[in-house]
């Protein structure tokens, strides 16, 4: 499944859900990945923080020869940290002489906290801690996986799903295409708040008038879209905007603009908007 993410999609949602459920049974709270740009420490959001820190300490200990003096970035995903927790995290890194280059987080509070403490913060979530079983690239740790191999190499159930998983590093893990990265906002956006993301944006809540969304990809609002939405902001004409309650003050897709002429009457409000030629058109969402 990991060799071909798009393959899994073709199998349908049920297969993916099954995989996901099986995967979550034996996931590590901390995964250290080698990326093109450097080492990335991925912390799984669901794990309890002190367990996560403990696991991080173990890993840094296990690979001390290799990681000492290195610089890492950390992917916190949607996890929100308190000042104390962040301080403890920094302390664990310092203990093992590891420097922190920056923080990836989809939480504004966490990014603000990171910046306050003098680190660079970027919006985003790679969620690589979910994708267990892929080896580091461009780095040569003593073992194929930075973790004790028995845990992530053959967890009992996912064995069924990944039949060809052998304990040696994969030659070329699939690249994460930026266009598929999604920002999840699990709250309402109030007037004056703006979310910008080089990917898709999903809002699980309302977007009030005066709030703005700007995405390079699609915008999906699982609530009332009453503010402004700009999809495909870097020129992606295939971007779409879907909303359960489509009442925006303004929509933009790529170069086209739709200024909110109020729709009267009992027209369905769950609509999707997309470009047809140079105009933005609406269609009811395909839900029955």
């Amino acid at each position, binding site marked *: 499944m990991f060799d071909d993410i798009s393959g899994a999609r073709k199998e349908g949602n049920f297969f993916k859900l099954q995989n996901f459920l099986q995967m979550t049974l034996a996931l590590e709270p901390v995964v250290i990945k080698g990326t093109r740009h450097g080492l990335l420490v991925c912390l799984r959001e669901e794990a309890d923080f002190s367990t996560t820190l403990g696991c991080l300490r173990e890993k840094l200990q296990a690979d001390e020869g290799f990681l000492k003096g290195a610089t890492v970035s950390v992917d916190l995903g949607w996890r929100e940290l308190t000042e104390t927790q962040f301080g403890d995290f920094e302390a664990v890194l310092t203990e093992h002489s590891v420097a922190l280059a920056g923080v990836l987080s989809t939480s*504004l509070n966490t990014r603000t906290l990171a910046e306050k403490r003098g680190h660079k913060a970027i919006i985003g979530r790679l969620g690589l801690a979910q994708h267990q079983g892929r080896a580091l690239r461009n780095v040569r740790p003593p073992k194929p996986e930075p973790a004790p191999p028995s845990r992530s190499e053959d967890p009992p159930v996912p064995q069924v799903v990944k039949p060809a998983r052998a304990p040696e590093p994969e030659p070329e893990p699939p690249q994460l295409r930026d266009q598929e990265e999604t920002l999840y906002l699990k709250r*309402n956006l*109030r*007037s*004056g*708040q703006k979310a910008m993301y080089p990917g898709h944006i999903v809002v699980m809540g*309302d977007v*009030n*008038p*005066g709030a703005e969304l700007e995405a390079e990809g699609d915008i999906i609002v699982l609530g*009332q879209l*009453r503010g402004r939405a700009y999809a495909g902001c870097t020129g992606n004409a295939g971007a779409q905007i879907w909303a359960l309650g489509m009442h925006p003050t303004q929509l933009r897709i790529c170069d086209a603009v739709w200024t909110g002429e109020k729709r009267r009457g009992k027209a369905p409000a769950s609509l999707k908007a997309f470009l047809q030629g140079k105009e933005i058109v609406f269609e009811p969402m395909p839900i029955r």
Partner: protein
Amino acid sequence: MGKVIVITSGKGGVGKTTATANLGAGLALAGKSVVLIDTDIGLRNLDLVLGLENRIVFDLVDVVDGKCRSFRQALIKDKRFDNLHILASAQSRDKDAVKPEQMKALCVELRQAFDYILLDCPAGIEMGFKNAIAGADEAVVVTNPEVSAVRDADRIVGLLEAAEMQGIGLILNRVKPGLVKRGQMLSVEDVQDILNLKLLGMVPEDERIVHASNKGEPAVLDRSSKAGEAYRDIVMRLLDPGRPLMATSDEGMWSKLRRLFTANLGSQAS
């Protein structure tokens, strides 16, 4: 230990000062010890609407600057009530004269001495607002059922949530039930669609408010004022959060009966 509540709105002129004065007076009538602080530095008016302007010697800026020994010197007791005090703002300074840390420290001191500390926040989202929310435990957002007021209130709620303010309540002020019925004014549902806050109460538009301000007498003291009655109800709800909302329509008995019949017909049809 007292509670510090900031009364804010974003938009100006929606009724924050009136609400502060009336809620304070109402809480004092209910037997609590209350201090009202006007944090609108440079444009002070809380003391005006309570008719206490002449007695102000020291103000908020004097207290934070240390010009008077303690806040007790600057507090003015309103003689009409058992335990209502006011700390007026400075008229000849501006909003940079006070810093958020100073407000926080003052609120900590006042919490020891009073049951309720109400802060009248200035309009806007700049230094005045930041000062007012610095020491507050809870917030009350006052707004009118009108698009620009609601939009500004939404902005303010966003800022309050970002400042991690617990307990944000809503007072919908200057409601005209007749206009709402005719669809010419936003209903409370329309407002709550956007703001989604705990509703403390709705105050109807009342001519007597202007007269009360001019006289320097809070409307809660006026038994014939509908706004006063609404404020008294809101005070009861502040003290007992589970209290059900008061009906605020000026519907006559006949139209209420008619509604009852049409509701029945509707259910029969379906």
